[in-house]
């Protein structure tokens, strides 16, 4: 039951049925039983078009915008105002004025004619909301809207949600980020294994309450681990200049058995830096030393041989071959270790995969299942498993827990722990401040392609990090 003018958060682990439920409401899937009522009337929603008619809009986690079209063209895609009736020309003038109105409603300072590809992810999200508004939506479903937004953009989104709420729109907010849910939701609906496992009113919403309803058991709280005092430099970056970034050289060192968090806003160049270290991106000058040895890292192959591993940001594009099996994925980087005269020793690959699947608690019925059948959290564990058998000395993690459920998240943190105790040097890029503060021994902050600062454990605070990330001195 969703009321006008309220924000309802829907939470649950991956596979709990959040997306399925929302897709039924959005007209993508059909229910097997039960009924849906809108304004007290029983309705069937056989298609997305019908959902739109009923005033239901769905903003997907992956944005569905045509990046080669302008903002106004996207907002009115398929519903363009027409002129010269029989010929149906697009009435661009009217479209522009109407778009301007919507943009001002969103307090978004954008030209309606700017191409979507020139917008930041945050702005694109706003355009999606604008599209929903232009359809006179009364119920807007947002699936993980903040997963790729910066803190600043998230705040903007929340302001907007509050404005929409006061104008009588109902927002259904799906998220993994409990802190945000705490901040924005009037009511929290918790799903588990496809069932409603509980509902919390505003005053009952606490982090622990939500977690216990989601997992149905008590979660072991993460404890800040003892910082190990090692002074063995594992990864040294000296005067590194990367072609796409600012010309100011980058310098830093990561010691064995240390987790260095790296924060920055979208576009700060964190991913580019990690990719340069991993040999994916070209560097102009500078040296990289791994374990005191200068390493020539021009291809990922060379990086891997030097003991560097990377868990990329977009696992479905760079991390995994989703049409291949769990076994094929896990053994791909280390295949050279399981060969005899270049023939794959299948027994060996099977053994290693089984071991990894067990160690990392990857939930799959069969190691020959395609990776695409796994949930996001389990897919991410497969990406990590790819590297573990190679025993890397430097591990680059780019947004390791994005789109990952709470259970898998804590398992991934546990894994990072274990790696650290084996003296691996870890660089963890994250946009999740909570995560950065929780895991890092030290934090590096980037802003517009340069390293703007380094914070020791005792100096860490959200404010200090944000200050550096926004470039304020």
């Amino acid at each position, binding site marked *: 039951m969703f009321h006008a003018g309220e924000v309802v958060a829907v939470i649950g682990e991956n596979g709990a049925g959040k997306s399925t439920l929302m897709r039924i409401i959005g007209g993508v899937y059909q229910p097997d039983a039960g009924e849906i009522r809108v304004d007290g009337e029983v309705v069937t929603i056989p298609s997305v078009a019908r959902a739109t008619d009923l005033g239901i809009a769905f903003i997907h986690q992956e944005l569905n915008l045509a990046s080669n079209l302008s903002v106004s063209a996207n907002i009115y895609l398929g519903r363009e105002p027409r002129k010269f009736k029989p010929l149906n020309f697009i009435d661009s003038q009217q479209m522009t004025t109407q778009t301007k109105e919507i943009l001002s409603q969103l307090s978004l300072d954008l030209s309606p004619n700017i191409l979507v590809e020139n917008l930041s992810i945050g702005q694109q999200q706003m355009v999606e909301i604008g599209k929903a508004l232009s359809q006179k939506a009364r119920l807007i479903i947002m699936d993980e809207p903040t997963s790729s937004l910066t803190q600043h953009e998230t705040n903007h989104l929340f302001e907007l949600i509050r404005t929409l709420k006061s104008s009588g729109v109902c927002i259904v907010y799906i998220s993994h980020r409990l802190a945000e849910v705490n901040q924005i939701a009037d009511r929290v609906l918790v799903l588990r294994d496809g069932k409603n496992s509980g509902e919390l009113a505003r005053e009952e919403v606490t982090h622990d309450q939500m977690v216990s309803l989601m997992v149905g058991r008590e979660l072991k709280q993460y404890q800040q681990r003892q910082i190990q005092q090692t002074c063995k430099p594992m990864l040294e970056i000296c005067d590194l200049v990367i072609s796409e970034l600012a010309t100011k050289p980058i310098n830093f060192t990561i010691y064995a058995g240390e987790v260095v968090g790296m924060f920055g806003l979208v576009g700060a160049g964190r991913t580019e830096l990690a990719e340069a270290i991993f040999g*994916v991106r070209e560097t102009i000058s500078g040296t990289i030393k791994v374990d005191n040895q200068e390493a020539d890292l021009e291809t990922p*192959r060379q990086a891997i*041989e030097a003991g560097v591993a990377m868990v990329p940001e977009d696992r479905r594009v760079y*991390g995994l*071959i989703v*049409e291949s099996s769990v076994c094929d994925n896990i053994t791909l980087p280390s295949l050279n270790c399981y060969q005899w005269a270049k*023939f794959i020793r299948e027994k060996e690959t099977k053994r290693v995969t089984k071991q990894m699947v067990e160690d990392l608690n990857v939930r799959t019925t069969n190691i020959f299942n395609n990776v695409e059948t796994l949930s996001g959290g389990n897919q991410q564990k497969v990406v990590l498993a*790819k590297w573990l058998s190679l025993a890397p000395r430097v591990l680059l993690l780019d947004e390791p827990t994005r789109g990952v459920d709470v259970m898998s998240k804590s398992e991934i943190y546990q894994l990072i722990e274990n790696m650290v105790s084996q003296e691996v040097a870890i660089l963890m890029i994250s946009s999740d401040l909570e995560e950065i503060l929780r895991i890092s021994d030290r934090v590096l902050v980037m802003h517009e392609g340069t390293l703007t600062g380094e914070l020791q454990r005792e100096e860490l605070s959200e404010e200090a990090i944000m200050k550096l990330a926004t470039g304020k001195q």
Partner: protein
Amino acid sequence: MKKTLGIFLLLTAIFLITGIIEPRFMQSGNMINMARWTGLYGILAIGACFVIITGGIDLSIGSLVGLTGALFPLLLVREGVPIVIGFVLVFTCAVTIGLIHGLLITKLKLQPFIVTLCGLFIYRGIARYITGEINQGFGNGFGGLRLLVKYRLFDKIPMPFIILIGFGIVAAIFLNKTIYGRYLLALGRNRDAARFSGVNTDSMIIGAYIICSVLAGFGGMLFALDQNSVQPSTFGNFYELYAIAGAVLGGCSLRGGEGTISGVIFGTAMVEVIKNSVFFLNVPTESEFTVIGFVILIGVTFDELIKRMAIGQKTRIVDT
């Protein structure tokens, strides 16, 4: 595996139906003939399969058949080069061409379609130029060499078919049992992810184009020995399309990352059987291409429909 079985059943069905309608189709002479053609085209199709698995395409196969098919007799007959040297020269030529294709596609990042389309024109032109448009052949000589295509095991199984099975076994082992085969399939499905896993994608792709050109070059020599009359301007025309058709019918996806050698061999056999059936069922030979086109279209459509049904089932399982 299921796909291969499907194509095999379809092949058998067409085979039996034509056989029942026109018993002459089943006579051993005709069977031997079809096996011979399948052998010759199959070698090209295996090459095409490797390139298609990387997500690429090779349109120059036919012209390369024309070039090597003309070059081989030209070297042996007109220039009097010893057989082994002639063989090595043609082989080197094919490797070089494949290497150039691969380098242009990976290092300059040109599109495979364009690179090999240019190849299609260039090699045809070279073939016509070096021969001066004069037909090439072995005449009545080189009997021993021509046994390579003329010999029949047990008086029945034609040599090209045996060669195809030999190549097929090697290719299948390479693709399924070695790390390189695994790398090829991986990069065909997701090149970025393969690169991020440390696979040297560029050299694997270059390797695939070399394999394709070498098989085309070898096929060209066999075709020349078989036909014994090579007209430089037409020899091998459209062969790349037969090779690609065989590979696609056999389950290769042009998106890359998919394909089995056994499927490709069945696919090629299918094309040959259809061609032959068209002849035996008194369909006017002018419509041969139309029939082949429709059969491939129907095959690919069915495949897509079955795939969609499978995906539909899968999502239902995940949902519940």
